């Protein structure tokens, strides 16, 4: 049975974590000098690179300009060597387009777009290595990149993918767990106000379990937000030391 393998009797998962434990998060801001904002984030074995350009004038179709706020344009793509099976096209397939739309929706909720009317903000995320939780890692990396670009946001956007196995919610799924037939839920949260920016689940789950799962996801996201906050403060310290000298 899939449930037995994914969560042992002692409460350990496939990679030795407990049910509510997140993978190790390591991040760095300001990775590329040419972009307006950039960040690299690793969550376990999933690695993502996010780059932000903007706010700048609308490129391409001027007709899509909004008179009262900025347009957020996202692109999600995966490196061809990121998955175990080589991926032939980095982006342009349905999955990537869907992810790009989700990212756009997530960041429209957080970025203060009213401050930049008639302009465009580009967020490009690239997955270098994929080991589950792709959407969450992208959102976390993109948050850091937007902060690095100096674009004001209402709050950090933290995301986490949770699954439900054996009456227990598992936080931060890896690829083996995601493909093991677990009902997974992806949640993007603005931690301070507890506002949900994006909620997505496409598996069967009993209604009674939904609330527990969302609670677990929100706790996991708050954990991620602490790590991201630490990274941003560390980066600012480093940068201000250099500026002072």
């Amino acid at each position, binding site marked *: 049975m899939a449930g037995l393998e994914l969560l042992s009797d002692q409460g350990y998962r496939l990679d030795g974590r407990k049910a509510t434990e997140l993978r190790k998060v*390591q*991040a*760095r801001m300001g*990775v*590329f*000098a*040419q*972009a307006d904002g*950039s960040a*690299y984030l*690793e969550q376990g*074995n999933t*690695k993502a*690179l996010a*780059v932000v*350009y903007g706010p700048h004038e609308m*490129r391409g179709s001027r007709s899509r300009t909004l008179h009262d706020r900025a347009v957020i*344009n996202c*692109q999600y*793509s995966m*490196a*061809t*060597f*990121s*998955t*175990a099976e*080589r991926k032939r096209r*980095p*982006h*342009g397939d349905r999955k990537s387009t869907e992810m790009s739309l989700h990212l756009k929706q997530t960041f429209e909720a957080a970025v203060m777009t009213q401050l930049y009317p008639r302009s465009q903000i*580009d967020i*490009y995320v*690239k997955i*270098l*290595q*994929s080991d589950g939780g792709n959407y969450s890692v992208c959102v976390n990396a993109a948050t850091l990149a937007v902060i690095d670009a100096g674009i004001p946001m209402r709050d950090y956007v933290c995301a986490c993918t949770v699954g439900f196995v054996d009456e227990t919610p598992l936080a931060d799924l890896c690829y083996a767990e995601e493909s093991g037939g677990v009902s997974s839920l992806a949640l993007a949260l603005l931690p301070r106000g507890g506002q949900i920016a994006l909620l997505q689940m496409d598996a069967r789950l009993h209604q009674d379990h939904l609330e527990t799962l969302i609670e677990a996801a929100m706790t996991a996201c708050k954990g991620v937000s602490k790590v991201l906050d630490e990274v941003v403060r560390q980066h600012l310290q480093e940068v201000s030391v250099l500026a002072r000298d």
Partner: protein
Amino acid sequence: MATVQVSEAEKVYILHGIRDDLRVDGRGCEDYRHMEIETDMVSNTDGSAKVTLGHTAVLVGIKAEIRKPKPMVPNEGYLEFFVDCSANATPEFEGRGGEELGTELSNTLYKVFNNKHSMDLKSLCISAGEHCWVLYVDVLLLQCDGNLYDAMSIAIKAALFNTKIPRVHISADDEGGKEIELSDDPYDCMRLNVENVPCIVTLCKVGHRHVVDATLQEKACSVASLIISVTHKGTVTCMRKVGGGSLDPESIFEMTEAGKRVGKALHAPLMKLLQQEESLGKTRRKVGFLG
């Protein structure tokens, strides 16, 4: 390539500087920018390398798969190249914007690397006519500040050096067919001989002189460029002129000589560095983008 606007006054400044062998960042005409190379960064691949040359950043991942060999050469494996100009480098590459440049770059890479003089393709053969190793070399362009060919070729050479192909045992099947078994031991692998793999040197003609490793500003002032791939012995394996301007035959000879000199000098330090990195073994601290 990502373009940068350069004013007339800036062009004159750059031209005069190069005429006196002093470029904008203080380099001589044949000096490279600060280069950083790191291998084995992506664990999903069989070999990978990241090269940062000034502000240009390139990541190469190599995956080895077993396929049928090409009918013309049944006892050789082959390489497949794919260059992904990602939107990270510049917003112009979003969607299908980077495809044109990517195709041009990968076609050049095919000519330079996928031949028996650069790589021992016979070592990639498993059983003649039936199975061979195909190396899928995927190049990811992360940041673009000129001199893509050089950075890509160094990254490809480093990634090929780092590639570990699992050993294969062929046994006879029940029905008389061949069965392929991959070795279970992760350390039992075959390494590639990258002695003859060439490095590409791009020379840009600016004014009356040529420069190696041009930045985007210098490229904007140049008339045309010459791409030369040079092996460690100094042999030129491929040469191409790119760019809209025209070059004098004498300039081409001069640039070829300079390219050979610079290219030959690249190989020895590169191999030394790669072997040094390899010898650190488990004690090596992987930095990647976190450093």
